[in-house]
């Protein structure tokens, strides 16, 4: 199971923030087109940055805690998941806080 550690951590982040979609009316997953637009360019740029950093050996990934599945440019699949899941967590937080403040009649 060790090799799925990074992937499971990302799964926990996605699962842990998922209730925000309904509990605080975040409506992030329910606006898929806007979500896709928000994520797309940062995803491409950060994956390229990751690829360059891996090629230049600025950082590397533990073979013990990753699956070893590589995407383009030797970027681990876990990293691709990271650049989707983590920004979604941030958007869910932002929209949840926004909904809570609006409900209380506050300004954003």
């Amino acid at each position, binding site marked *: 199971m060790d090799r799925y*550690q*990074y992937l499971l*951590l990302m799964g926990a*982040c996605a699962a842990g923030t998922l209730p925000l979609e309904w509990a605080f009316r975040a409506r992030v997953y329910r*606006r898929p087109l*806007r*979500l896709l*637009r*928000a*994520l797309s*360019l*940062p995803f491409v740029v*950060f994956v390229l*940055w990751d690829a360059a*950093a891996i090629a*230049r*050996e*600025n*950082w*590397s*990934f*533990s073979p013990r*805690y*990753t699956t070893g599945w590589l995407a383009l440019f030797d970027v681990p699949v876990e990293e691709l998941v990271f*650049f989707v899941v*983590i*920004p979604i*967590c*941030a*958007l869910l*937080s*932002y929209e*949840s*806080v*926004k909904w809570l*403040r609006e409900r209380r009649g*506050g*300004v*954003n």
Partner: protein
Amino acid sequence: MPEYTVAAFAAAALVVVVDLRVWRTGLFRSPVYWTAIGICLFFMVLVNGWLTKLSAPIVLYDPDQKTPWRFPFDIPIEDYAFGFALLHWVLARWVRFAEK
């Protein structure tokens, strides 16, 4: 110059400058934004702390390409700049692409 240090802080500075000059999202004046960033920071410390803990690291860094500073739980300080650049950029796009 350590490459990761330079790249991470340059990226963070770039999103701030581009937002202030070009996108003008107003996020930096928004209490909602800062509250969300605070929440993200808290959870980032937990997740990033797990990824970079020196006792069983998932991500390993070339010590020559970063500063020796790690805080807390062995988190490289560069990771905060990297994370901020990623999250601010995505949040800025999310706000800019709101349905009118």
